[in-house]
């Protein structure tokens, strides 16, 4: 469940408002020199229809697993030191943060790349859905179909 090195990451699904300052403080370490963050928040319209609010739901156990996989990749491929990645569920009002990501690294290039990778991968692979509520109804947002159609490995060979 955890990577071999204890990176002291925060990986959470929450139902309360997200406080970005706490997450930024958490990843800030004296051996690093750069933090890059992504703050995703609720837009006031969707396809030019005014939005009232959004409702997020998740397949929570799997979502956390996929978020941990993203974080493991940030450490292994991007040399990221600490990560905070938090997604909120339930009803969110316009302007409220739905997802916040903070990554720290010794230098900025890795931090920018890693943060971009994290949000792009989350939006493609983490099983979370949002329903958009309007004056005259509600729709599930168009999403991305995860790249899951690849053949799965067969049962592990006996060893």
């Amino acid at each position, binding site marked *: 469940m955890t990577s071999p090195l204890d990176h002291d990451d925060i990986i959470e699904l929450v139902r309360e408002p997200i406080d970005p300052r706490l997450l930024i403080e958490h990843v800030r370490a004296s051996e690093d020199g750069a933090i890059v963050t992504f703050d995703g928040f609720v837009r006031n319209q969707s396809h030019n229809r005014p939005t009232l609010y959004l409702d997020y739901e998740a397949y929570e156990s799997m979502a956390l697993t996929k978020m941990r996989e993203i974080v493991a990749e940030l450490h292994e491929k991007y040399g990221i030191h600490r990560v905070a990645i938090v*997604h909120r569920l339930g009803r969110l009002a316009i302007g409220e943060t739905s997802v916040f990501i903070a990554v720290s690294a010794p230098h900025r290039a890795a931090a920018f790349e890693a943060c971009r990778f994290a949000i792009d991968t989350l939006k493609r692979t983490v099983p979370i859905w949002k329903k958009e509520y309007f004056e005259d109804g509600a729709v599930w947002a168009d999403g991305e179909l995860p790249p899951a159609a690849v053949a799965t490995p067969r049962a592990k060979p006996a060893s």
Partner: protein
Amino acid sequence: MKVLFFGRLKDVVGQSEESLDFTEASTIEQLFAACAARNPELAKYRSSVVASRNQEFASWDTRLQPGDEVAFLPPVSGG
């Protein structure tokens, strides 16, 4: 076997979770077909759904074991 539906599929099925004893379904594809037989509306979503088995994405030909947790997942829209 536990079968989970999320997002618009949950609306279609009318519930998020079913405990099913599908002795006739040995793959995820067959399980989906069995669910669609009970709820014909589901069949329309076959091409826009992916599946997971025990919290990992799984292809449609994945073989099922007793006690598996299978979920049918519409396009994800987190963020």
